[in-house]
């Protein structure tokens, strides 16, 4: 048993509206969860408030908190709200339009007026420096110090608060970027400098530059924020060093986060998927679709063999960021999606959303347009019990009025209109999720839908039916999965070296040496920067492609094969990976290695979740409530989630209400509460 000093592990996820807390008690193996309102104006205050409530409600005393992780949207919000610092970009002369040109393609190519968002560094603050690095890493022209001095002068005149240095072919040889950065530091020590080759050193100038720009744009703000959080924790008497969750699904020290903030842009979202994969794994579903539905949008991620899928190029406010991240796709459907009728009388739901403010009509905050949540209220699923810590009273009459405005022109009863809104919303979600399933090659028959967020459990059964999924999992604490994910995550960092080699026997020694160098960096990161003392774990991979292809396939490489210079096995691994992804491979074709990658992992102690014994017999419903389903009102059982015990069984149709969400158990589904209090719903196939 752990000593009293290390009793609690606390995960916190700070979102735009709410901050979620998840505290794991090593003594009782219980998880306590709560939410408080976020205080974006005074970061850190919500953490203190949450810690206070944890102590008050669950007797979690701050000095007993031995482990503290934390995810935040502060980076994303800085980009979305355009509140980053005033940056200048130093670019290679004659290539200064890299951000304006991008990769050319517009977001909606059918619309003549489609445009990308304005670059975070407008052109007037892009300043050329004279130098040129060749693609083989030799200098074509040295750095012209005078041009750098002029650039610094101009940057100052333009009121720069930071400089991004991103030069052509720096992925191959960063010497020029470093030289320019050193000059800037000497000439303008007050300005922070960010080099593209240090933020994430990939080939492709736009991708590398835009990533460095996002990094520089948010860094000072994120750093300040993390500083005040660390201070707040110290003041509250928490002994643990704060960790922050990263886009790659791992954690790092907050101290590191202040430097590497590009790594934590998708902090909360990624942690949510980690939490989801943990829950799915515990419940026996290594393959799952994580479905997190909020007010405006739904985040979808795929979990395979217990592992989330990773990718690069996630979009943030219209800007791509090329940092290895848990792949999460946002679709424009949520509880606040507004139902409307087009001029031909066809009913639509979304993408416009009532958001948090005014929110659905039934929240009584001034919204008067029908939303998906209002449809659920009219149908009788929502509004049966008070939503506890959201402090929201459901006004069913307001929902009926809002839905009624559509019912009349549709020639329907209010219930029929609500049912139509639900069915159309679900078919829209089906369209978006099935796109992703076919892109990833996901077979619906061996995947479960893991539903969370305020509106996920409401829609999950209906969506599962459309998608042909048999199983739905609703976690015990669906509102705080990101906070939970932070408790599960390992220390983890990605390292990359672009080598651009033809895969031939002669390349083997340099591949081996580069991996050794990456491993050394990984070891240093874990040991020196994270203070990790355990056994380090390394995963090696390479981004490879057939010569002539314009994209790479990440291929896992075996450490022993790297040591043995076994290039044939690298090629075999690539052919196999290509076959798996695209259903064909070309073993005779020449292969190129573009990047070598290494993931360094320091395993953190995991909370020891233990299953409770399952009790026999069904759960007792709280009462029966009238729900409109299948064209008529019928009495269905209402259960309260906190009264359900492991082993309890539920037969759909039924409603399970809990503090932060409502679960609609559709006709044809049977549910069971497992030993971890997750609710597993299953339907028999056709």
């Amino acid at each position, binding site marked *: 048993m752990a000593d009293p000093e290390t009793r609690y592990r606390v995960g916190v996820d700070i979102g735009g509206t709410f901050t979620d807390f998840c505290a794991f008690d090593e003594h009782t193996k219980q998880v306590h969860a709560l939410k408080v309102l976020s205080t974006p104006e005074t970061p850190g205050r919500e953490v203190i408030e949450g810690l206070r409530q944890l102590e008050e409600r669950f007797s979690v005393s701050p000095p007993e908190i031995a482990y503290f992780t934390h995810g935040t949207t502060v980076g994303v919000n800085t980009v979305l709200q355009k509140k980053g610092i005033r940056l200048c970009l130093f670019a290679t002369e*004659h*290539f*200064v*339009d890299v951000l*304006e*040109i991008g*990769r*050319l*393609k*517009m977001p*909606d*190519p*059918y*619309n*003549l*007026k*489609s*445009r*990308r968002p304005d670059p975070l560094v*407008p*052109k*007037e603050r892009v300043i050329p420096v004279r130098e040129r690095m*060749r*693609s083989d890493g030799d200098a*074509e022209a040295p750095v012209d110090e005078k041009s750098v001095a002029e650039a610094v002068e101009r940057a100052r005149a333009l009121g720069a608060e930071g400089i991004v240095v991103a030069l*052509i*072919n720096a*992925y191959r040889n960063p010497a020029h970027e470093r030289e320019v950065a050193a000059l800037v530091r000497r000439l303008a020590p007050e300005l922070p400098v960010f080099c593209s080759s240090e933020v994430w050193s990939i*080939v*492709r*100038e*736009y991708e590398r530059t835009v990533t460095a720009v996002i990094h520089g744009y948010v860094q000072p703000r994120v750093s300040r924020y993390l500083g005040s959080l660390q201070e707040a924790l110290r003041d509250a008497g928490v002994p643990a060093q704060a960790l922050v969750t990263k886009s790659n699904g791992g954690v790092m020290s907050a101290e590191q986060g202040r430097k590497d903030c590009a790594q934590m842009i998708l902090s909360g979202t990624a942690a949510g998927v980690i939490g989801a994969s943990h829950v799915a794994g515990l419940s026996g579903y290594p393959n799952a679709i994580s479905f997190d539905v909020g007010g405006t949008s739904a985040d979808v991620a795929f979990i395979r063999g217990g592992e989330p899928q990773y990718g690069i190029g996630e979009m943030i406010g219209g800007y791509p960021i090329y940092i290895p991240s848990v792949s999460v796709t946002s679709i424009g459907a949520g509880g606040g999606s507004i139902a409307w009728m*087009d*001029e*031909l009388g*066809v*009913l*639509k739901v979304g993408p416009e959303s009532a958001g948090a403010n005014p929110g659905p009509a039934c929240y009584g905050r001034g919204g008067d347009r029908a939303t998906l949540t209002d449809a659920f209220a009219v149908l009788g699923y929502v509004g049966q019990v008070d939503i506890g810590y959201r402090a929201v009273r459901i006004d069913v009459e307001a929902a009926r009025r809002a839905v009624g405005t559509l019912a009349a022109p*549709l020639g329907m009863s209010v219930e029929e209109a609500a049912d*139509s809104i639900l*069915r*159309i919303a679900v*078919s*829209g979600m*089906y*369209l978006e999720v*099935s*796109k992703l399933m*076919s*892109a990833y*090659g996901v077979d619906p028959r061996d995947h479960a839908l893991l539903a969370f967020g305020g509106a996920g459990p409401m829609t999950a059964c209906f969506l599962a039916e459309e998608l042909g999924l048999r199983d739905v999992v609703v976690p015990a604490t669906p509102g705080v999965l990101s906070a939970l994910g932070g408790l599960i995550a390992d220390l983890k960092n990605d390292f990359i070296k672009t080598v*651009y080699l033809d895969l031939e026997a002669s390349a083997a020694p340099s591949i081996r040496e580069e991996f050794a160098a990456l491993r050394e960096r990984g070891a240093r990161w874990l040991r020196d920067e994270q203070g990790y003392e355990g056994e380090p774990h390394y995963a090696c991979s390479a981004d490879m492609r057939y010569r*002539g*292809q*314009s*994209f790479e396939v990440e291929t896992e490489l075996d450490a022993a094969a790297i040591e043995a210079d076994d290039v044939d096995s690298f090629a075999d691994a690539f052919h196999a990976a290509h076959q798996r*992804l*695209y*259903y*064909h491979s070309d073993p005779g074709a020449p292969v190129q290695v573009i990047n070598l990658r290494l993931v360094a992992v320091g395993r953190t102690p995991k909370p020891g979740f233990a299953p409770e014994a399952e009790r026999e017999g069904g759960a007792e419903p709280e009462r029966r409530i009238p729900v409109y389903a299948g064209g008529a009102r019928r009495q269905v059982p209402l259960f309260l989630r906190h009264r359900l015990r492991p082993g309890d069984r539920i037969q759909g149709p039924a409603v399970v209400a809990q503090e932060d969400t409502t679960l609609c158990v559709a006709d044809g589904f049977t549910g069971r509460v497992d030993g971890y209090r997750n609710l597993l719903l299953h339907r028999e196939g056709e």
Partner: protein
Amino acid sequence: MSVDNVTLQIFANHCSAAAETMARTLLRTAHSTFVRESEDFTIGIVTPAGKTFASPFALGATWFVGLDYANALSLIDEYHEGDICLTNDPYSGFVCTHSPDMHLWKPVFHGGELICFVAGHIHNTDVGGAVPASLSRTLTEVHQEGIRIPPAKLYRRGELNEELLRILLTNVRMPEQNWGDLKALAAAMNTGERKVHEIVRRFGVDTFREGAEDLLDYAERQARNVIRRIPDGEYFFADYMDEDSDGGYPARIALNLVVDGEEITFDYSGSDPQLASSINIPTGGDERHVLMMVGLVYVLYTLDPTILRNAGLTRSSRCVLPEGSIVNPRFPAAVGMRSLGTVRIMSTIFGAFAQALPDELQAGPGGGGPLLNVRTTDNRTGRRVMANISPITAGAGGSAAGDGTEGNGANQAFFKNTPVEINEAETPIRILEYSLSRDSGGAGRCRGGLATSMTFQVFSPHTVLTARNRDRVRFTPWGIRGGAAGKSSEFVLNPGSNHEVDLGNTDVVTVDPGDIVRITAAGGGGYGPPEERPAEQVLGDVRRIFVSVEGAQRDYGVVIRGDSIDAEATARRRAEMAAGRGSGFFGHSAARVAYETRWTRRAYLRLHEMLGRLPVHWRFYAKHRIFESVEAATAEGEEAADEALEQAYARLLALNPELGNALDPVR
């Protein structure tokens, strides 16, 4: 519409999901990088009558909305379960528009009854013929553009037709790639069939059938609602391609757009006769041919992005396509580079609609830059390298809503470039510059988007550059409402040196070690009088290096000294500009103005009337002879008079007695 409005929306979502699934299956399994990177493919679900009613939302080529399979479908006698049919012949059924596009379709049966087809196409990199990749402007007959397969069964009741496949693969340069891509497309057909069966199970076969028709009706009604917002009237516009053949005369597309209530007629009488180069557009005279409707679809979708994109959209519109013209060539005219022709059709349509909706639409989109391909040798390895360098693109035209997008946009917004670093790592060339071209955007209150420009050096002898779709040197993207035309595109060898060569619209050139090549597209047209652009904004453009100090003064009347505006000089210069401004709607390049001074609308009417008397196979030749005579006989700045035209025509007949026989075989 017979299916209720709620079910219809749900049905629409399920059909879209089926199309999306097919598209992603194809993208994931296609062999050639080309299909995956350029997304040059279509996929969809088609009614038994051949009308596409469902397709993916944002994947695939943007030019084929509502593709009509009707004629091609009817060229197969009988359909059975498991059949997959194929064609790539631009003259059989007019669904395929050039030979590299391989179209497949598969009938879907329910209870023995045909309920729909699933269909799609991919652009193969090569289908044989005279040149690698099968496409060149210089080709004159479709026979030179590779193997052509009229509608035939690739699979019969699920059995592969190996004979047909062998014939196909024997005739192409990279058979494995073609077969790999074909397999992927066939797999997508099978996926589509399975998804259709799922939809039928969920909705019932009657709803499926009626729903498909209803979706077409729905799109038609949406289109009619948008068209109703467009003021009734006739709107004439002509646009040109610089050359109708290598070094030839301009090729003219003329459109009389007639908007009448909810209906539109596109009358292309007045467009040039079919060309002895491959820019022709094979429509078969189909009055709703998909390539002739791309411009309309863009306009409708831009005016209302909620419209469904299917074959119903264009039902209330029709085209008049004179036989033997660029827009309805007679077999065996070459059609491989119909993309250049189609882009010009679009700009012509945009010009006509801009007059009807000047507050909502844009000035001429930039363009004319090539798809650039380099074949060279790596001096270190001796390996021959062939690579697609970036498409050289240009921005959108300005509009009341603001400046055109820089570097790319409007109807070219689907293009993707190749990064400089990839080009340099893959191809032994050095890129000296890749940027937005200063002063290239047409001046205007709202400026036209800038063109991109690339300069590079090659290091090996016998380096061949292919620059497909070069255009817009002479006839540049037009401005509207006082806005100026975009700057010309450029293709220059060794710029600024004593051996500089202007390559004009050349599409293939061989260069030597050390040679430097610069290519720039033509910028978008401007909107509104440039002297009305706030001077601060012009100064901002100067600071962004989008406009030069000289350009600011010349094009915008903004006089800049040091880093600030000379208010007094600016006011003076701007007053002059405003006083000298004409009232014309369009702002054209000086070259176009000069050209149209000679070749007026009236002269063209006469010319086309004469050419119309001749047999189709004489017209292109005759056009060139008449141009020669007329241009010799007419002074600069003078209209081509009726007499000059008559004399040229008489001379043509006199020199070609065979033509006389052809005109009057009896004599």
